[in-house]
């Protein structure tokens, strides 16, 4: 990864271009001009000679040992003219040329040479212990005239900063010793789009660059073992593996992989600083903004079958939210695992259960929708009207009924009706037990003479004088007999809460 960055930085540097502005007559600009000419010159000399290093060595020897400054100048000039391969040699060449000029009292020429050296490597420095104060002073003067600081701030921070292809630090950063002039600046941060820009560094100015980094899209090459599984993102089909997905920071992709005979696999793909995460501990490395993610599918166990029965039947069945038919329903091939079954009869009841489908086994699930009401009454054989509809005589068990409120009316001839409202809950088997109050009167029969047998609807009920308490209302036939007397027959009516009183004079035969 680091190599990549370096390479990239180099690439950007090579693609840059050099622009020289000669509009200003100060030392630095003069130095620049000279520096430019010199470079052009070096290139041309290199074409002619192979290497100027022997001249450089001869020049250095002339300076260090012989203190022959003219020779030094001549030799090094030749070396520069011929061309030096190594950059360090070139720097050394200019430094020694500068030393020689200082020795010769040519201060301006020395500054030009030092500037050339610093331009080749801004980090060039001289050890004050080795060199004389004069040299150090001129060198530092040159250097001071050539550099300033550059502040680079990025949003977000923490990005690597490359100045002219060389990494200088991490934002926010104040880079000191930057040569005045144009530089290429590159800000690089993982999962953000790198930003390259050309900055102009001015002397004695606040050189500040603020860089806004945009999130980079990382390409995910998604594959599965085995390959060729269906990919769904947020339950929308996308295609088959292998395929490419894009993701950026702070985004999450809900991916489902499904393949026949394999268990569905759900992936939560997130881009994290240490790689791509798919919801497990494993991280997939991102390389060149590309991550290869491979998900392994577990082979599905053998399917099980499911049978759904409801009471009452004809309920719509939903398997994991998908309508699959009406009860009674048998589904032969269901992938094992936890499933949600919902059955519903509109305007009646709806019920949801979670079940486990087991391989090679039939799972039978029965739903009892609504509730049941058991009607009992005292007396029995009372007519029951449920929500205005006659449903039978007590004792009675209702069919399964919708949950909620129901109107019940109990009715029986010669009894007072009873109305009630019940609220039936799901799964409830409600007992509704009532007593109907009979509509009763009483009967009293006296006769002259007494001790006559009394028959009510043909049934002997006693002898006069007689009081029968609690006779159901209605019409009856009353017969009074006594031996030696004529039978007395009459029709009577018992009214509610009334005493039907009869006094009969029997007639002798």
């Amino acid at each position: 990864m680091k190599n990549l960055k370096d390479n990239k930085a180099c690439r950007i540097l090579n693609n840059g271009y050099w622009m020289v502005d000669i509009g200003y007559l100060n030392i630095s600009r003069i130095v620049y001009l000279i520096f430019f000419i010199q470079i052009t010159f070096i290139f041309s000399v290199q074409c002619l000679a192979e290497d100027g290093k022997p001249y450089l060595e001869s020049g250095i020897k002339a300076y260090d040992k012989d203190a022959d400054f003219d020779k030094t100048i001549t030799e090094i000039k030749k070396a520069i003219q011929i061309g030096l391969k190594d950059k360090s040699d070139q720097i050394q060449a200019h430094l020694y040329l500068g030393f020689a000029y200082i020795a010769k009292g040519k201060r301006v020429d020395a500054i030009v040479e030092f500037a050339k050296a610093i331009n080749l490597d801004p980090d060039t420095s001289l050890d004050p212990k080795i060199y004389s104060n004069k040299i150090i002073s001129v060198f530092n003067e040159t250097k001071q005239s050539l550099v300033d600081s550059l502040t680079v701030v990025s949003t977000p921070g923490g990005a690597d900063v490359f100045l002219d292809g060389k990494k200088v630090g991490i934002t926010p950063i104040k880079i000191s010793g930057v040569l005045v002039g144009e530089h290429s600046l590159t800000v690089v941060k993982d999962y953000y789009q790198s930003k390259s820009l050309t900055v102009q560094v001015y002397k004695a100015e606040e050189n500040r660059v603020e860089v806004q980094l945009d999130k980079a899209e990382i390409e995910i090459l998604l594959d599965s073992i085995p390959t060729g599984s269906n990919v769904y993102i947020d339950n929308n089909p996308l295609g088959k593996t292998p395929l490419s997905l894009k993701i950026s920071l702070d985004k999450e992709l809900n991916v489902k992989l499904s393949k026949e005979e394999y268990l569905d696999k759900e992936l939560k793909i997130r881009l994290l600083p240490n790689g791509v995460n798919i919801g497990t501990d494993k991280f997939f490395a991102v390389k060149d903004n590309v991550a290869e993610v491979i998900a392994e599918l577990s082979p599905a166990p053998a399917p099980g079958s499911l049978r759904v029965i409801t009471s009452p039947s004809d309920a719509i069945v939903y398997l994991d939210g998908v309508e699959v038919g009406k009860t009674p329903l048998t589904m032969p091939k269901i992938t094992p695992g936890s499933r949600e079954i919902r059955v519903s009869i509109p305007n009646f009841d709806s019920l949801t259960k979670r079940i486990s489908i087991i391989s090679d086994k039939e799972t039978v699930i029965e739903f009892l929708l609504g509730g049941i009401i058991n009607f009992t009454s005292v007396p029995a054989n009372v007519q029951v009207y449920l929500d205005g509809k006659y449903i039978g005589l007590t004792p009675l068990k209702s069919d399964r009924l919708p949950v909620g409120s129901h109107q019940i009316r109990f009715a029986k001839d010669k009894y007072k009706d009873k109305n009630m409202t019940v609220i039936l809950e799901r799964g409830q088997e409600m007992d509704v037990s009532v007593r109907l109050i009979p509509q009763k009167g009483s009967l009293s029969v006296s006769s002259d003479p007494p001790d006559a047998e009394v028959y009510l609807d043909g049934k002997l009920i006693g002898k006069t004088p007689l009081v029968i308490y609690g006779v159901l209302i209605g019409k009856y036939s009353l017969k009074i007999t006594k031996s030696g007397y004529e039978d007395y027959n009459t029709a009577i009516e018992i009214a509610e809460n009334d005493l039907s009183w009869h006094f009969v004079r029997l007639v002798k035969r």
Partner: protein
Amino acid sequence: MSKQLLMFRFQFLMFNSQFSPFGKWGKGDLRIALKYAISLLCVFILFIGCAPTWNGKVVYLDDGKLVIKPESTEKIKSGQKVLIYRQKTITHPITGEELGMIKDNIAEVPVVWVREKSVTAFAEDPWFDMMAVDDNAKAVRRSVKPSSGSVIEIGKVMDVDTKNRTVKIAIDQGKIPSSTENLVVIKYSDIIIDPDTEKPIALKVEPVATIKKIDSSLFSYEPVNTISWVEIDDIVVKRDGDMIKESIWFQDAPDNFSETSLFRRNYLKAIRYYNSQLYKEAIVELNIVIQSDPKYEDTAYLMGMSYAKLNRDEEAIKFLNDYISQNKSDVKALIILAYIYQKQGKLAESADIYEKLVDLMPKESQLWVDLGDIYQKIGDKNKAENAYKKALEIDPNNEEAKFEFQRNIKQ
């Protein structure tokens, strides 16, 4: 004494010329007067010799007939004349001392029927109006044509069919009449009390209907007037002679005769009205009974029932309570009273009556159930539960009691 009487008689004839057999007194006709006097004297002498004398008291007056209680009925004959007079005591206006008696003769009336205990005489207006109970009676030597005819009881009414106006008559053995003409149904319309013994001595008899034979025991009847009716137990008589035309007559009261016989007809009629759902009419008849005897049989109960049927609850409650205070264990009256209280929403009163009923009808589990229901309506859960429990003790199979008892326990 005979001289006094003669004087009186003479005076009487002088001033009451209409009693003279010769019409108005001839003025100055001395010869005729003398002739009259002589003949009068002869008659007087004849009377003294053979006319029976007896004394009595007027005990009853009705319809131009007066009932006289004689001291003895030995010498009394039909057609005999009786002097009715009033005796007054003269008292000193200041001292109050009895000074003497004055006899005030009112009229002479002929005896029509002689019974063992009483005598009935006939009087015409205006003399009848002048008479009063407690007037004295004295037989006088005069007679008119005696009345003839008889009333023979032949049987009793057994059954009345008011719709077809027929009656069934049980004819007493050996009294089958040769003809069925002049048969009437009678009623005793009044009772005549001996003022001395305060016992009934005579009964006033009125025909209520004439009857005609249909077959051996079935007769058609025709009420004699719009207010009369035939009732069960009424007596059937056969009249003949002078009795045929009489609208009332009197006969001796049997020793054991009860006053109730007079209004029993009204009571029986009330029952018939009640059975025909003519409750207002029943109440009219029952009022007659109650005025005579407020405690007669179950009249008060019938009154209550009739008022109950007319939804006149307050009157019904009053009569039923009257009846129950006399007949504390009469369940039928208690039941209807309990019903009325319930209808009125007087549940506490109703419950009180049920508490009595459960004692009187200890085997009736239904009473306990209904009592429990009433206590539940009142809101007395403990008493209600107890009542249902009692019902179950009597009848462990009483489904209603079981239901309520279990429900109470659950709550």
